């Protein structure tokens, strides 16, 4: 009995670093107590983090799979578990299980293509692992464009990494925008969907979208205007999840379970699902 690990059984993790990204987002670094990475994952996959007695919740793994030392989770304060995590300190034990879901098709569909990443707010979290994965295997991909927007410059996630690493990479173009004018910001001001249209990308790319539903909706129509097809655009979904293995029924939309069959979907696949996500 005991030798078979149950998929619901987590491993113990310990928080070794907490980075304050924005006023409501912190990034947590998690390893096992003996200092190892808890498990391998693919870009876009998720993991269940929990604090016994507080609850368990699904988060995307924001660190790249190429990072073999630890995992990172960028977490926005918005519910019980996240609020608890935000007041946790370095050295706090948590439990973690995963990886769950299907990753982005980085090794087949994305290979050799130009990539366009579009994110809003904490929506950058799931894309960060893909972006860094693609940066790591730079020669496997074409040009990379990143459009990232947030409410204000203080709400930009991973700002330092974006400026210092991503923006300085050859063949990576970073386009940042914030919603409203702000002192000390001389970059673009405006919502992501409009910015994407302004930038006017060629359709020779695969686009990956993540952000609040309203942003997704308008960015999508912007991409269609630019001539993108649904089959070129990917996103990652978020729904209530408990088991993470497609059994508890919570994230069931149509015949799909977001935790198992998602969270990465291509927009033409989403079209086949009932509009309930």
């Amino acid at each position, binding site marked *: *009995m005991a030798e*078979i690990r149950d*998929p619901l059984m987590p491993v113990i993790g310990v928080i070794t670093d907490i980075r304050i990204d924005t006023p409501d987002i912190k990034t947590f670094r998690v390893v096992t107590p003996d200092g190892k990475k808890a498990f391998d994952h693919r870009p876009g996959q998720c993991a269940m983090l929990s604090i016994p007695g507080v609850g368990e919740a699904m988060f995307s793994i924001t660190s790249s799979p190429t990072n073999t030392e630890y995992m990172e989770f960028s977490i926005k304060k918005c519910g019980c578990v996240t609020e608890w995590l935000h007041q946790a300190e370095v050295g706090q034990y948590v439990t973690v299980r995963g990886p769950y879901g299907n990753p982005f098709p980085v090794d087949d569909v994305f290979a050799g293509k130009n990539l366009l990443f579009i994110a809003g707010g904490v929506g950058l979290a799931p894309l960060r692992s893909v972006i860094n994965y693609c940066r790591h295997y730079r020669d496997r991909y074409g040009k990379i464009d990143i459009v990232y927007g947030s409410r204000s410059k203080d709400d930009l996630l991973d700002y330092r990494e974006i400026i210092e690493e991503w923006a300085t990479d050859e063949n990576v173009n970073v386009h940042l925008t914030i919603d409203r004018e702000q002192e000390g910001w001389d970059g673009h001001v405006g919502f992501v969907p409009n910015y994407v249209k302004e930038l006017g990308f060629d359709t020779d790319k695969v686009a990956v979208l993540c952000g609040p539903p309203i942003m997704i909706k308008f960015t999508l129509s912007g991409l269609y205007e630019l001539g993108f097809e649904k089959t070129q655009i990917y996103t990652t979904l978020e729904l*209530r999840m*408990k088991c993470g293995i497609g059994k*508890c*029924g919570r994230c069931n939309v149509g*015949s799909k379970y977001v935790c198992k069959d998602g969270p990465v979907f291509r927009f033409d696949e989403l079209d086949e699902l009932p509009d309930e996500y």
Partner: protein
Amino acid sequence: MYRIAKDSINLLFAKIAEENALYLPVDNEKGSSEYKKWEDGTVMSEKLNTVRSPKDFFFPQVENLMEFKTEGKNIQLIDIREDSEDFVVFGVRACDVKSFEVLDNVFLNEPVDTYYKNRREHGVIIALACTRPAETCFCGTFGIDAASPAGDISAWMTDDTLYLEPNTEKGEKIIALLGDLVTECGAEAVEAQQESTRRIMKKLPLADLTTDAFGGDKTEEFFNAPEWATLSESCLGCGTCTFVCPTCQCYDIKDFNTGKGVIRYRCWDSCMYSEFTRMAHGNNRLSQLERFRQRFMHKLVYYPANNDGMFSCVGCGRCLAKCPISMNIVKVMKTLGGKNNG
């Protein structure tokens, strides 16, 4: 096929109980029956079926998964899984036997749920053929023959005799355990009973109900059907249908702080409940219409899409009998799929 006289059935129960925990339906004072552990003197119910389905045996309403001890910032995980007892469930009806198959498709699919698997491996099902189906029965709709139940052993009870036919290795083992208590016999009496039951099944009010209109490819056809509004109009949003249903398998995982540690347990949950899909960020099924639709779409469309057309309903009729407002899958099938053709 084997036989034992009906008035010796207690000897059979006692023999099985020697090596297994034996559960069977027993009448309660409220006029319904429920599964109870057999002990000397327990009388088996003559009722058609229990209010609670036997899914509890493999997927109990509440099940502790693991424990945590916390001390300061440290957390210790304790695996509390134990080997299940060997048990035998006697008197499971054909519909409920089929429901285990529905549950197997969920829990035994990769990644395998070891809690469920453990119980499944240690459980032996002795299925009992029906002779007096109720008006709420419609197992035939799902291709189930009430007169010929599956299970590890199929059993038939006539006025004076119990007939047993092992179907699996586990079943053979039980027969071997029974030894001299049972004697080999022909199947004539069983066949006669089957014929009679099947005749009755044809007379049931829901005998003509079919699933022809439903299946895995019907999402588009039914999802936006206007009928959902009227069907769900008076749904209370309670979980009766879900909890008496032998195939409903949604669950919640929760933590209970005992003061000395944390028990992580899982319990049945219902897609009919308002907070089933509630997240910190919002809820993707806000109205009862959406939640009601989810339950039936799952049974009639989504589940078949993932399981080679098998429906997630076995026609046991419990929801027909127990829904506080008498709204049920039959009414849904008839409304959406046309009067006779579900």
